[in-house]
């Protein structure tokens, strides 16, 4: 399921670029014509990466970023691009495959295709904002939006503020316009945005998997008995097999029940601590917020250090103890099956014998104690304000310099003002690189999964305006490339991440650092001084919340693009609006649709 997302964002990382730091006008136009004609690429960019330190070939690395429609396998996509009659891909990569060949034969193209396949990298993780839409669909829906606005201006004097009649007139106009016949069918939606949008549908998968697992165990347990029932009592071998199957299936069944119960208890506790308790007790809510704030606090105040230390002293051991209890409870049946005597004679006497009432009492006392501690600190903060102020007083932010933006990056951003912005960021993986690469991949899987299944309305967490954001681990796990196509400007974009998707962004970047590197070519940015990603706490806290450091880090990692293609040039909001208008114009006439039409023409 995640591969379909990852395949939408491809980077061709081609070492040995011998061209200059600019793409010729002729090639620029040819690439535009190619990508326009194939109508499957939303965004494309070309950039130059400095060669990898220590690589035998110290020429720059050419990167072609492609953000494409859903469902294409890289081979099929590259096949279409390479074999396109205008030969733009050959003009770009031909000299790196077969120097001196101006007009490629079919064999040359096949060679290029093979080479591109060896250079290509599908995203290790990514997020697509305007999902389920093809390039052609976005263009057609944008046209519908434009035409509707034009028609609305004509009809405005007639209908004035009568919104219902106005919407009805526009819907009639759209219905009778043969140009928009395609819009009569509702805009297509993938499963997670359509039938699978509800929480119930999302939960159905794990529930079905659990039920299936128990059914399989039940069948395995039943099989020997069914056999005996059909064919009579078994012999020695048959009985041994029956015993083995019965014991194994019963043991697995008990382990499964225990695991499920342990999971349910932990899930209940997490829910209790994070949902009802904060909702019921203000002090609890404040304490939770305070803990999060202190862990995220970019400056090293006493309060944040105390919280961090408290986390290590209390939080981590507590969580480890809970995990250990859960594991012990889950696998206890296995221990009983393998060493029953040892469990009965050695372990059991050491376990406290508590009744259910006693356990409940302990739980209540524990919760009350935690609440009491929280309340105590709340009162202390409130009545000893001077001490509290001193305690929370921020230290100086340790940022060596303000953000220095390389002129080439600035020029690229200026070129894209008014359109969709773009960003290339190149960082190195922290050592040991295999461990960093593994951690990043796991983190990106989580981000991609969440984006695919939960964040289906164009927002990643609370961060809006991302068209295609994707991460690639390249150069055999040594470097980390991030490409993004987003609305607005760079500062606002990073602010959205810092405030809206802090955990995901920290997870994606915390295992990276910046090494000194020479510019790919003259006029390109290099890095003079090594930098680290802002320090994190407990893997997911702080990090990007060190705003200045993070922005400075991101700025320093950036590279300019040499070429940029935007098939539709619409913001995510405009795309969503146009799709909504299509569904509203051709849907049933009700208040909601009328309102949507009015908002679309007034926006």
């Amino acid at each position: 399921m995640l591969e379909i997302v990852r395949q939408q964002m491809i980077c061709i990382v081609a070492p040995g670029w011998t061209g200059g730091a600019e793409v010729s006008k002729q090639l620029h136009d040819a690439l535009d014509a190619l990508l326009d004609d194939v109508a499957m690429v939303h965004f494309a960019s070309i950039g130059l990466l400095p060669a990898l330190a220590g690589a035998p070939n110290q020429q720059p690395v050419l990167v072609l970023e492609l953000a494409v429609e859903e469902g294409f396998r890289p081979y099929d996509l590259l096949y279409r691009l390479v074999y396109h009659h205008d030969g733009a891909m050959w003009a770009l990569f031909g000299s790196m495959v077969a120097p001196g060949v101006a007009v490629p034969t079919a064999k040359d193209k096949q060679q290029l295709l093979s080479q591109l396949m060896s250079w290509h990298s599908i995203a290790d993780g990514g997020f697509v904002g305007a999902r389920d839409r093809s390039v052609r669909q976005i263009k057609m829906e944008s046209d519908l939006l434009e035409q509707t606005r034009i028609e609305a201006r004509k009809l405005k004097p007639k209908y004035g503020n009568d919104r219902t009649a106005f919407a009805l007139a526009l819907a009639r106009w759209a219905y009778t316009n043969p140009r928009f016949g395609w819009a009569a069918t509702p805009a297509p939606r993938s499963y997670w945005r359509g039938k699978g949008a509800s929480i119930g549908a999302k939960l159905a998968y794990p529930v079905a998997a659990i039920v299936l697992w128990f059914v399989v165990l039940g069948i395995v347990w039943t099989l020997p008995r069914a056999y005996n029932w059909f064919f009579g009592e078994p012999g020695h071998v048959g009985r041994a097999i029956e015993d083995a199957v019965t014991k194994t299936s019963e043991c697995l069944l008990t382990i499964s029940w225990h695991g499920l119960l342990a999971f349910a208890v932990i899930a209940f506790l997490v829910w209790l601590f994070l949902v009802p308790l904060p909702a019921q007790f203000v002090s609890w809510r404040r304490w939770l917020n305070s803990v999060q704030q202190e862990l995220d606090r970019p400056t090293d105040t006493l309060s944040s250090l105390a919280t961090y230390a408290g986390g290590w002293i209390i939080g981590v051991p507590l969580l480890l103890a809970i995990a250990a209890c859960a594991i012990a409870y889950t696998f206890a049946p296995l221990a009983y099956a393998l060493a029953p005597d040892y469990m009965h004679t050695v372990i059991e006497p050491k376990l406290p014998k508590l009744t259910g009432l006693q356990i409940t009492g302990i739980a209540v006392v524990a919760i009350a104690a935690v609440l009491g501690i929280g309340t105590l600190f709340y009162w202390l903060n409130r009545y000893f304000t001077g001490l509290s102020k001193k305690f929370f007083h921020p230290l100086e932010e340790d940022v060596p310099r303000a953000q220095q933006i390389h002129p080439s990056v600035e020029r690229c951003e200026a070129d894209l003002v008014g359109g969709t912005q773009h960003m290339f960021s190149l960082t190195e993986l922290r050592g040991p690189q295999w461990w960093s690469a593994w951690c990043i991949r796991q983190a990106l899987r989580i981000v991609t999964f969440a984006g695919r299944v939960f964040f289906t309305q164009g927002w990643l967490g609370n961060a809006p305006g991302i068209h295609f954001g994707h991460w690639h681990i390249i150069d055999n796990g040594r470097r980390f490339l991030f490409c993004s196509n987003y609305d607005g400007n760079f500062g606002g974009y990073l602010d959205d991440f810092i405030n809206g998707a802090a955990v995901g962004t920290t997870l994606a970047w915390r295992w990276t650092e910046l090494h000194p590197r020479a510019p790919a070519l003259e006029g390109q940015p290099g890095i003079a001084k090594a930098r680290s990603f802002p320090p994190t706490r407990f893997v997911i806290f702080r990090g990007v919340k060190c705003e200045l450091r993070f922005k400075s880090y991101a700025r320093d990692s950036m590279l300019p693009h040499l070429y940029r293609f935007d098939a539709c040039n619409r913001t995510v909001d405009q795309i969503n609006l146009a799709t909504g208008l299509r569904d509203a114009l051709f849907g049933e006439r009700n208040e909601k649709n009328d309102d949507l039409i009015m908002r679309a023409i007034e926006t």
Partner: protein
Amino acid sequence: MKLSTYEPDALPPGARSLSYGVFCWLNRHVTVLRALGALLRRWPAIGGRFGLVARASAVKDVLMRTRSFSNTAHAANMVSGDYLIGMDPGPTYSADRDLVHARLAALDVPADSDVEAQRRIKALRGRGAAGFDLIDEYLMWVVFRAMRPLFGAATGAVVAGSVTDASKGDVDEDLQRQYMLEIRYVAGQLLAGSLATLDLRRRAEACGDALQARIDRVTGTIGAAWGVKSSSADIERNAVGLAWISHPVTVQSGALVVQELLGRQKVYDELWSLADKLGEPAVWADPEFRKIVRNHVLELMRFRPIFPLLARDVPRDTEMTTGARQNAGCPGGGKVSLLSIAALFDSRVVPQSGRYCPDRDWGNEDALRYLMFGYGYRQCPARDYAVEILTSALIGLLTLPRLQLARGEGKAIAYDGPLMLCMRMRTT
């Protein structure tokens, strides 16, 4: 021109892979379909409840009632635009059908297919005991050569996708191969394409777009070669349709025929011995031998039809005979499915239907013998040409030393959805 605007998968993850996987598996294991067909022939009312017909009389009846059971069921699977096979009868259908008949009349079959088969066999023989890919190195070229007159003087331009490079398309085999791969994926969608997984659909759409763009660039040349003065849209529609439907379907049928033949070692041995006795060039010239091989091709196609299942749209409420006491109701807007493979094995009309018998006397049911090409007015107009091309191809293979699937080096047959992608063979 049809523009592909893809639809995301609205089914839960895994559901489409599962259903399409089952379809492809059934398509490859037609014995299971035949068993299912036997059950439905025995109890046709059960099939009727699910809109399925299996008896020969019922299948023929549905195929004859072209107004009640429409070919538009194919339309959803045609990624490169409308064409005859998915149209309802009407002026466009009639005009296109006339054009196709005119183009088919230009074919010089079996002369062309014989020539190419001989050329390819000679090349394969020259390679000695090395294995070869039946599809990539033999069948697709034989069929391509036989069907060249479809585009006449414009063939080179169609292959090269450009008027200026027209001559290149005539000589560059890599260009020709690329063209044939492109149309193969478009044709592959005809087999339950709307059920296919997203990546297969998208590949077919990309190839369909590429095919349309290719034809669009050379429409004028095609029109001149055909000597017609139709609008460019008409020429384009027919050229695109002719390109994707003619070649890949015949090639796949050929591969299925050979697969079935190799599974019947005794039949293969008999045919091979006959060809060996005749020797070259008599195998190509002897009309009696050709007739025998032709009968075998048809019988092999009966066992391995390329479309064992057919679908038809139901435009309005109607009923269909299934062979049960009562007709089955067919609600308008729905679909019916025809188990054509079950009809081909219906012992009520096919004597000793389970036996492999190329010389069977079909009596009044001779038309049913060609059910794999459809039935009645909507039957494939290229039926006889396709059989002749496959006959040439099979004769060629019979002149080689004994063949067998090249097992032992991975799978001899690689599938791509329901299509055979390659079929590696070796001589013994």
